[in-house]
């Protein structure tokens, strides 16, 4: 009896060994083997914590697929645009209303009378505050890829990454001029837009700012298309913008400071009105690796709203001192 037990155990062990060998030969995949060609990006993503003056105070899931655009109205209501719809939330993330449409909204801004302007691929659509389609503007160019819209009381500025220009319309959709169009005769180099990240914002004095992402600059233009000023430096360091197409998005604070979001090294920073780095809002550790398309908005309380399309969240950051 004892012999049988021993033989049984031995056979069992043998089967275990055979099983292990089968797994090792045919099923296992080597993990953690050193890569002699490893390209470690982690060092690039570290930043000085002393610069980090913001913290995440709130986040909520808007309940839309493929969220790409965020805007805030003067009352602090948060508008989020995505696939097939727009949702409106109060400043605490409570859903107020929503409306649907067919298609993908890549960007959103608010126009006159609470109208909602959406960049729908190659054209702009305007909806009333209640979600009724009011206008559908014709694509200005067969190559159009609308990535951002900004509006003043008089004009609507539409960034077209496909044509690499900013269009100036009035609120009825009448096109006035193209800003930043390449013009070799007049030595205007045009915008360098290697990928569909091309943001526009209105400054505190109503001036137009454009992210020339291929040159890593923010540029200010007059309404007639004259370049007024620019700032920005290409660098992997925290002071600069790295890689292709950054800053991918930006927003402007009440004091004229710039909030910028980057891809590649995923981070959100604040620059002074003159383009000097003031502080970091969010570091790469706070985002999933490979996150792109962090649209930004600033609410009347000065809170920074970051639309995170990978986590599918609206993430709200506040200054640490203010929170205390």
């Amino acid at each position, binding site marked *: 009896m004892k012999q049988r037990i021993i033989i049984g155990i031995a056979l069992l062990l043998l089967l275990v060994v055979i099983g292990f060998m089968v797994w090792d030969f045919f099923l296992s995949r080597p993990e953690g083997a050193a890569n002699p060609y490893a390209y470690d*990006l982690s060092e690039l993503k570290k930043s000085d914590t002393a610069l980090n003056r913001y913290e995440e105070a709130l986040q909520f899931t808007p309940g839309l697929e493929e969220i790409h655009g965020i805007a805030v109205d003067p009352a602090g209501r948060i508008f989020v645009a995505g696939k097939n719809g727009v949702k409106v939330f109060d400043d605490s993330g409570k859903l107020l209303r929503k409306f649907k449409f067919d298609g993908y909204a890549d960007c959103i801004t608010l126009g006159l009378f609470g109208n909602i302007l959406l960049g729908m691929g190659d054209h702009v659509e305007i909806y009333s505050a209640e979600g009724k389609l009011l206008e559908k503007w014709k694509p200005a160019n067969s190559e159009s890829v609308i990535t951002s819209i900004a509006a003043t009381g008089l004009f609507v500025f539409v960034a077209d990454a496909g044509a690499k220009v900013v269009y100036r319309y009035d609120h009825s959709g009448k096109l006035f001029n193209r800003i930043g169009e390449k013009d070799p005769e007049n030595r205007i180099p045009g915008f360098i837009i290697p990928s569909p990240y091309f943001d526009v914002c209105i400054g505190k004095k109503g001036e137009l700012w454009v992210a020339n992402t291929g040159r890593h600059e923010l540029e200010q233009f007059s309404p007639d298309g004259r370049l007024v000023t620019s700032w920005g430096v290409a660098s992997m360091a925290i002071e600069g913008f790295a*890689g292709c197409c950054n800053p991918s998005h930006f927003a402007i604070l009440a004091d004229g400071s710039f909030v910028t979001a980057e891809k590649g090294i995923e981070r959100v920073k604040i620059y002074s009105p003159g383009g000097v780095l003031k502080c970091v809002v969010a570091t790469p550790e706070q985002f999933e690796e490979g996150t792109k398309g962090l649209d930004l908005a600033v609410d009347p309380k000065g809170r920074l709203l970051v639309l995170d399309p990978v986590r599918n969240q609206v993430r709200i950051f506040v200054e640490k001192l203010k929170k205390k």
Partner: protein
Amino acid sequence: MLNRRDFIQTLVRGSILAGLTLLTGALVYRSRKGGCESGFACGSCPKSDGCNLAEAKAFRQTVWQLDPAKCIQCGRCATNCVMSPSAVKCFHVYAMCGYCDLCGGYFKPETKDLTTAAEHQLCPTNAIKRKFVEDPFFEYSIDKPLCIGCGKCVKGCGAFGNGSLQLQIDHHLCQNCNECSIARSCPSEAFSRVPAGKPYLLKSFGKELLPDKKTTSG
């Protein structure tokens, strides 16, 4: 009391029994799957070249390829291919790329002088060539004999750029081994058999960026 001789005999018999059981199980499994009696998968079957079974014919009409969407640039394409240098090469999807001067797949991070000096380049074998077009545009091309398929540039391009540099098996070089040694070690299972008539899996701008839109190029 079991003596040593009996024990060894029992052990050998037991091993043979276990082996036979496994073999029988494999044969039963294979025969149920498609009538093959060899007990091998097509990829490792020594008779697959002359086999007339439908499964083997389909296998012969396919080739190995890696899916750039699954690739994690682990470096094994450079080290595990039976070819030297590897049959996996970097490909450049021109339709995607703006040919930026600051190409993250071309330059090492924090390079101050954006020149073609070897110490500034990310590629360990200087396989990426660039030609000035106009400020800030450069056209990039891959010197295939120099490329070892390490994927370093692919990682840089994906992290900082458009992801227009992608690894693919070059079918002018691939031996289409029955059992691809890179596929076996690929940690992300990016390798698969694809139809020989459509042997490349290069991706362009994905829907994750702009749904239903064409590409933009600089």
